[in-house]
């Protein structure tokens, strides 16, 4: 089974300012990027379920030149607030690294 980590040279979460979280999935090369992009595994409902956010506010961008898929949404808790467990947003990507990526469809 292929996992996200098998396709990516970097998986990270970070703050995009104090009120947004952003996730970068940078693929290892063009072939793995296309597989990641076309697999459709990184979806708004997935992030809504994992992080308790509104799927309508999940922004998913395919950055072909950076060979990366980027996902951003408003932080469930503002950065540094009493309930915020991760001030830099630096470990929120953890549940995703072993996400199964289905085999490409045969055309």
């Amino acid at each position, binding site marked *: 089974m292929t996992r996200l980590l098998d396709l990516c040279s970097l998986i990270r979460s*970070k703050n995009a300012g104090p009120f947004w979280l952003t996730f970068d999935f940078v693929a290892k090369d063009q072939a793995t990027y296309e597989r990641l992009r076309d697999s459709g595994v990184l979806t708004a409902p997935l992030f809504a379920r994992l992080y308790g956010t509104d799927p309508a506010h999940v922004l998913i*961008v395919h950055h072909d030149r950076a060979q990366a898929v980027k996902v951003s949404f408003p932080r469930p808790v503002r*950065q540094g607030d009493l309930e915020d467990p991760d001030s830099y947003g630096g470990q929120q990507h953890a549940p995703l690294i072993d996400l199964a990526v289905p085999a490409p469809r045969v055309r």
Partner: protein
Amino acid sequence: MTAPTPPPEIRILAPTGALGAGFRAESLERGVALRPHVIACDAGSTDSGPAYLGSGQPKLSREAVARDLRLLLKARDRLGVPLIIGSCGTSGRDAGVDLVAGIAREIAVQEALSFKLALIYADQDPGHLAQRYAEGRIRPLDGAPPLDLHTLTSGHVVAMMGVEPIQQALSEGAEVVLAGRASDTALYAAVPHALGADPGLVWHAAKTVECGAACAVPPAADGLFVHLRDDHFDVEPLDPELRLTPHSVAAHTLYENADPFLITEPSGTLDTTDATYAALDDRRVRVSGAVYRPGTDYTNKLEGSQLIGYQTIAVGGIRDRVVIEQLPQLLPKAQDYFRAKIRDVFDGRVDPDDVKVDYRLYGRDAVLGPLDPARDEPVHELGVLITVTAPTQEIAHAVATFVAHASSHLPVPEYAGLASTIAYPFSPPETDRGPAYRFTLHHVLVPDTPHEPFRTVHEEVAP
């Protein structure tokens, strides 16, 4: 006013991602030898949380800031070009500008340097904010928290400046600009923008170098250099051991941005959708194709931070399987006990609702919270972070002492007698953490002019 004709090449030296983060002195020398038109860097960020804006204290040490500033002031003196540093003192509060200005004056004396200094202050007057709020000229950005007049005016607020106040200070003769909160990109864009260069290229070049060599291979605390021409810019790392690749430069637009293609500035939006990145050789990249779209309104982003209380923490660990299993039942009971104890100890003078006792369980769900998909997996050891937040440090400390004590003797049903339920590594187990703050604003101000939110003071610095 007609736009000036830009020189055929504008050179920008970005010595480091942040003043005080460091760079190799040899790298700066290499940048100086390339004869830049401007040296610029930022000295702050919100990335380390609300404490810096709330307290006015800087993140990086005075020594580290002075080390970098000394080298930059000396380089500027030799070149006779502007040195622009923004978001001074981490938060870009007036106190941060004054702190860095004080260091600059000391260095001037020690190194026998003279320069015209401009200080641009970004603190916001609560009365002025209240007026703009009433006029509907403080607008929420996507994802903004709810805002009311009290929240707006009770905390500490800075506005983020664009290029205009910096350009005005330079046109009035400043050689060194120490700015309060500023858009990182504005620091690099101010001079080429004033020289009439293509705005898409200017803002994209500024965005590319704002973190210094963080986008190099390998990432480093060091600098980058830009050659900006009429239809492209070339960017290279100053350290010959570092490389830039088309991929590493393109991927930098991802960093700490919600949208990698659209980057909002006070006067408009940088759109890098159609930007192209080409290798000039194995360490330099040529970039072109970004466009800058002027906005309908000029806006300054506001950042606010307010005091929410004082904290005392205790760190411990739980290894006993029985205690770990019982915690979900024990902790709510402990919370009930703490509320009663607060009423009792303070004889009604402290409302238990004003004190928060929080247990963060490392090994279970401390990092991801209650949605952690692995939170019910068995663990053999738990780290426990107890945080008490209260209206004063004295109350937080007093509550933490009995919280820490009670946490070490939780009433485990399986054990008769006084059980021992947590391992504390420190004596005393409680540590006062001081004031705690929260960010209050994700909003923009619509000013009458780009200069309205800022105040500039000029001075002659001489040894």
